[in-house]
């Protein structure tokens, strides 16, 4: 069974279902690990948006796993065929685990192109249709350390019929079987970890069936698809995740696709999710915003911590639009706003990122106002650092039984800011 070295070790499993631990033995030689709950490092074509490797490494404690998606890679098939040494080497990524997913979580794909035998991805040159055979041929060229099996995830639209949901579960299982056959016979993919995809739309029974059937296959982990932000409410999502997790083995990681908002992350971790795609900071950067929500748990926010709101390090000024992932959330501040024109504070007081250590809000505001490329660079550095620190705080809170404090801190802001 080609599951490689990957092993999930828990230091704590909470009653509700939250799991704290380390995913060990990642990579072809098994030398990498990733703490869970955690997120992957989001990339486009192997590059964290806006950043060169030098600027990226201004960030410490980067996740050891970099996500790439076939949306950006499929069009380079011929090039990779000629290159022969895999995508990591092609893109100059030396010391990371490469995790390949089908779609870019930050760029929703058009729907209506999925067939019984194919799925589509959208590159710079338009749509590329993939059969399972072509999908696996691509994976052999990319030689990722982990990858997600081909899946029909087109069930998130409103009014998707039960019949369509059932079909998506069937197709996805059929794709998985085909992928597994190739995977197990492939030298190029030896030691790579294949994640099976759980579909089932918003139908709990289909979710359970998809999970149960996928778990019967020799997969290294599970990917929960079709539950992305903006498509269903949090309560329903948690309920569906619960239905899925009941069917999944304890010892394999669970990645949730398309969810990145801090409040949703908290809820999904409680439901038993281990891994997230790290695309949320990218969305925030693209709208010219900086993450500024608080996640410090040293003092319970409700027992009073001596920090009056006026001294709060940042003022989130977003409205709540949970239905639209492109809209600003209450976890961020809009640096394009005129009020930051002469604000000589760092984006977030106390933040150790390159941007906050070296620049002021006024400067980032100026870069945004003048459409300068450095704005994206600096915001990516800050937003990524802030988001990773949030995950670190979440793990600490799980270890110290302070998840409720953390939730109040993170969510409290949402309530008071509107």
């Amino acid at each position, binding site marked *: 069974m080609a599951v490689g070295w990957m092993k999930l070790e828990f230091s704590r499993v909470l009653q509700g279902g939250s799991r704290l631990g380390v995913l060990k033995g990642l990579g072809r030689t098994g030398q990498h690990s990733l703490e869970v709950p955690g997120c992957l490092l989001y990339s*486009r*074509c*192997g*590059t*964290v*948006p*806006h*950043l*060169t*490797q*030098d*600027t990226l490494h*201004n960030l410490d404690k980067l996740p050891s796993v970099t996500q790439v998606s076939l949306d*950006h890679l499929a*069009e*380079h098939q*011929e*090039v990779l065929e*000629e*290159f022969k040494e895999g995508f990591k080497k*092609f*893109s*100059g990524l030396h010391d990371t685990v490469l995790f390949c997913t089908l779609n870019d979580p930050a760029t929703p794909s058009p729907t209506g192109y999925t067939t019984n035998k194919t799925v589509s991805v959208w*590159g*710079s*040159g338009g749509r590329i249709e993939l059969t399972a055979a072509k999908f696996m041929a691509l994976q052999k060229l990319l030689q990722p350390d982990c990858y997600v099996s081909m899946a029909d995830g087109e069930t998130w639209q409103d009014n998707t019929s039960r019949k369509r949901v059932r079909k998506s579960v069937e197709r996805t299982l059929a794709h998985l079987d085909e992928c597994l056959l190739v995977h197990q016979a492939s030298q190029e993919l030896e030691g790579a970890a294949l994640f099976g995809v759980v579909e089932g739309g918003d139908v709990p029974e289909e979710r359970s069936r998809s999970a149960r059937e996928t778990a019967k296959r020799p997969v290294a982990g599970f990917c929960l698809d079709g539950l992305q932000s903006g498509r269903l409410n949090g309560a329903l999502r948690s309920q569906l995740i619960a239905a899925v997790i009941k069917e999944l083995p304890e010892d394999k990681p669970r990645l949730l696709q398309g969810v990145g908002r801090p409040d949703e992350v908290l809820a999904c971790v409680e439901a038993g999710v281990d891994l997230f795609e790290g695309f949320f900071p990218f969305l925030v950067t693209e709208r010219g915003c900086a993450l500024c929500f608080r996640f410090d748990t040293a003092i319970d926010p409700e027992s009073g911590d001596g920090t009056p709101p006026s001294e709060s390090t940042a003022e989130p000024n977003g409205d709540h639009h949970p239905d639209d992932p492109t809209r600003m959330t209450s976890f961020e501040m809009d640096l394009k706003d005129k009020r930051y*024109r*002469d604000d*000589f504070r760092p984006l977030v007081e106390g933040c150790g990122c*390159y941007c906050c250590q*070296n*620049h*002021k809000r*006024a*400067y980032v*505001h*100026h*870069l945004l*106002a*003048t459409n*300068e*490329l*450095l704005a*994206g*660079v*600096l915001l990516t550095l800050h937003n990524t650092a802030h988001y990773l620190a949030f995950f670190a705080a979440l793990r600490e809170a799980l270890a110290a039984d302070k998840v409720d404090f953390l939730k109040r801190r993170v969510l409290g802001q949402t309530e008071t800011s509107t």
Partner: protein
Amino acid sequence: MAATSACVETPPSTDMSFKKALAVASPLTLHIVAECPVTKARACDLKLPHCVVSTPVFMPVGTQGTMKGITADQLDALGCQICLGNTYHLGMRPGPDLIEKANGLHGFMNWKNNLLTDSGGFQMVSLVELSEVTEEGVTFKSPYDGKTILLSPEKSIAIQNSLGSDIMMQLDDVVSSTVTGPRVEEAMQRSIRWLDRCIAANSNPHKQNLFAIIQGGLNAGLRKTCLDEMTKRDVPGFAIGGLSGGEEKDDFWRMVTLSTDHLPREKPRYLMGVGYAVDLVVCVALGCDMFDCVFPTRTARFGSALVPWGSLQVKHKQYAKDFKPIDPDCRCPTCKRHSRAYLHALFKSDTAAMHHITIHNIAYQLNLMRSVRQSIVQGRFPDFIRAFMRRMFPSREQYPSWAVDALASVNITLE
């Protein structure tokens, strides 16, 4: 910038003894490290308030207080000792008051090495429609709010004082290098008068160096008059202006060499707007120390990488499967890590592709100037030029004739 009425002042006396008496020891020293025994080239250490600059030097242009997606640390790591900011852009947004509050442009962009700012005049004349030049200054309509604004010599210096640049440029009356007739002389004479007003207006002469700009179009007589007049002023450095605007290269190099012939040896010479590799090498041979140009960073955005044999269009199909670095001999962060093929692919997904090329291009320009300097110091600049030309052009026949002539004028024969 203030409205028209606010900043008109009577031009102060142009009496020279008065000016000399006011002169302060400038915050600039030029130490000539080596002079080429064959050409007019020299290698100097130019000491400025923030650090010593090794010349000849290429200065990258960071128009809005940022270098095209490159962080200040990255620029510093490439060895950049001085870069440019544009007074017109920064004066408009975010404005001099805000930048002053941020401890000048250095503080605002967090740049620890030197900065040079232009006067804003050139940008205004070239970017803004309906700008009008009078004795008072340049009047134009703000593209942001439509207000009429006067950029006088005093105003330009006031803004540059707020920006806190290590080198400020005088406001000059810019005419296109292809214009002929009385307008050229008028602009030259006015630039001299404006220089005096700029000197008088500098409120920070002990920290900020003001450079004069030699004008006179392509007319040798006018250039000479301007040189004679301006070199009487006690300014820390001189720029050669009004060139690089579409004139014939034959006219261009003759005006450059005429200028360096008459500029004082002990002061830096800055050739404005020049940045193509061949132009840089030739104009160093003609005696220039400092250069700036938007070209290397602008062209990077379109995927054009500078290489010793010209340029390489990374976005062209031919590089899709080319797994070599941009320049196998380049040691910049881009070439050390990435292939032409990867950069070609990345251009389809993310702006970081541009940043990679920008870094390479700045590295190319700075390395070129470092090699030039080293060859001057080691007394082998003529050989350097010959090797450089051989690498840049596939054959002797393709050497541009103006470059051959210009080099011949400083005793370099190309085989």
